[in-house]
């Protein structure tokens, strides 16, 4: 049973980690706390249903189109329209703007499409697999695999390429990066694009399990938020650790301690982390204060 819960928890946590990484990337580069992060997952999921199930476009093509559209809409457009005018006004206006954006996306989906949950087929068979007394499905392994792939890809990009290093420089200190001749606003745009694309991928992982629904992002966005803070807001590996921890804590506490207070355990961990190690488990203290 423990193994089964472990695999399930990891699979869930891997998706949380994916969403959390984009989240902390936005924070690092532009000091945007994206409360609409969950809707960044919802929208691509609806796009996939629209393209693949309604218009019946071949799956791979639909996937590519979805990633491109959500990159344009949630990456480029969000950066240009919302982030740029507000970025210099401090953290709070952006927080409120993203909350409003979340409300807007959810209600637009209800009005323009449906308030109901939609079925989404799984890419890999949901047939049960057995390992000892544990039963899980190929979907779980697939989720862990894809998430690992994307996260290590991102890690390599940031650490090994020139653009990646510039991105890192901006996230460590925007002003210094500017002095060094790095175009900070370009890098911020890049962060937005990366976030939108990763969120798009994670929506394809989570949609077959959670179904596609206008409010599917609310819980996901919160979990990603928890994950980013627990792991460390300024580190990619922090989001990874945080995501996996949130997934595991949730699964194990619900199974062994209490289903009533399932939601509370993660929060208690979160509060303890905030009070005693605000930079997160793997985070580093931020020396550079933004207004």
């Amino acid at each position, binding site marked *: 049973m423990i193994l089964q819960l472990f695999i*399930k928890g990891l699979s869930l946590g891997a998706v949380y980690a994916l969403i959390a990484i984009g989240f902390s990337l936005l924070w690092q580069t532009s000091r945007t706390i994206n409360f609409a992060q969950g809707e960044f997952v919802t929208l691509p999921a609806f796009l996939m249903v629209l393209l693949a199930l309604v218009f019946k476009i071949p799956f791979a093509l639909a996937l590519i189109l979805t990633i491109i559209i959500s990159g344009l809409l949630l990456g480029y457009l969000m950066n240009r329209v919302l982030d740029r005018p507000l970025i210099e006004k401090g953290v709070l206006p952006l927080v409120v703007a993203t909350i409003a954006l979340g409300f807007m996306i959810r209600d637009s989906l*209800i009005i323009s499409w449906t*308030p109901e949950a939609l079925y989404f087929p799984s890419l890999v068979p949901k047939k*049960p697999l057995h390992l000892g007394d544990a*039963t*899980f499905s190929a979907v779980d392994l697939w989720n862990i695999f894809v998430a690992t792939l994307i996260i290590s890809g991102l890690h390599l990009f940031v650490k090994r390429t020139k653009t990646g290093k510039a991105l890192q420089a901006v996230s460590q200190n925007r002003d210094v990066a500017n002095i060094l001749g790095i175009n900070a606003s370009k890098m911020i745009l890049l962060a937005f694009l990366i976030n939108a694309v990763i969120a798009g991928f994670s929506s394809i992982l989570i949609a077959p399990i959670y179904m596609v629904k206008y409010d599917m992002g609310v819980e996901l966005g919160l979990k990603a938020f928890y994950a980013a803070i627990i792991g460390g807001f300024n580190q990619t590996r922090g989001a990874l650790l945080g995501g996996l921890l949130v997934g595991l804590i949730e699964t194990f506490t*619900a199974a062994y301690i209490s289903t009533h207070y399932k939601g509370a355990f993660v929060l208690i961990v979160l509060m303890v982390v905030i009070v005693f190690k605000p930079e997160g488990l793997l985070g580093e203290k931020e020396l550079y204060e933004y207004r």
Partner: protein
Amino acid sequence: MIRRILSICIPLVLTVALVLSFGATAKADNVKFAIVCEISGGGAPVGKNWERGVLMAVDEINQAGGILGKKIETFTLDTKSEAPVSVAAMKKGIEQKPFVVMGTIYSSSTIVNMSILEKAGIPQFTGSEAPKITQQGNQNIFRSSYSADLSMKKVVKWLTDVHQVKKLAIIYVNNAFGKGGRDALVELLTAKGVELVSDIPTEPGQMDFTGELARAKSTDADTLFIYCHEEESGRMLPAIREMGVDKKMRIVGHTTLLTADTIRLAGKAADGVQGHVGLSPVAPPLKALADKYIAKYNEGPDHNFFKAYISTYVVKALVEEIGAFDQQKLRDKLHNHTLYVRDHPNIMMDIYYDEKGDIDRESFLVEIQDGQHVITKTIPPLEPARFKGN
């Protein structure tokens, strides 16, 4: 100057708009039915079926000449599946002075908005099943389906007589609907000596059920009873298959676990699930109506469609029996009253309303095979004596 004119005009326009929006009145010779239900939010699939049920019945009635020569007019208000919004919607609804109000379905909403209609004296037909609703002495509310405590009597009889259940695990949604059903079921089962080995609440709209299912699986229960809304049931059933819970215990449920919507979301994972339902689209009396629905909407109806459709015809039947649109007489007459299909063909099945507004009629045991209901047994009403006029 322009600015000044503008600044005077804007408030003026707003005021006029405000006045106009309340000025709309209905044609005098029509009678109004209010539909107040869950158009958006978690209850959306339920509300959609409910609204369609009323509308289809109203269309048919109007085409056939209305009730006592009067055409029915309807208007729909959304509760967003939230109790406070349903209160606001009811207050808004009664201002148009409808003859009856059809809705709400979510028990947590109905429990709080029913007193508004009781005060206004407008009869209410609800789709809710929580026992508490008819236990408060409200003479104004009528159900359209079994109260959970009554249907659970049938469920318990089935579980203990047919399946010989000894140890039961239950997963329910922690709101007035789920908790109401769970409390009724547990009380009846413990009286029969069945042991409750696992008692697991879930949140409305919950996404992930791994921990809950692991908990159920680790017990030695022989049966898992699921009492959640359609959406959560649709997510839970595939997870049950994946985790192999169904290999260890029987999966059973009541109504919501077996609706068209649950099946649509769960796909193949719904096959093999058994349960008790009040109304089934494959039941002989309802088959033709279900086909009409499918032809019109290109998808299968759920029980809420039938509930609303039948209730609308119940109103028509009663008004015609009374011979006038009299809300007080309707209330008085419908209590302790049986309506027969032979007199009113469109009520589909003989139906009895008791002194509290609860109903009694036949119901069905079904199993899902290839995404369809298959009726395994028709269960007679709880008290067949009530239908002796037949």
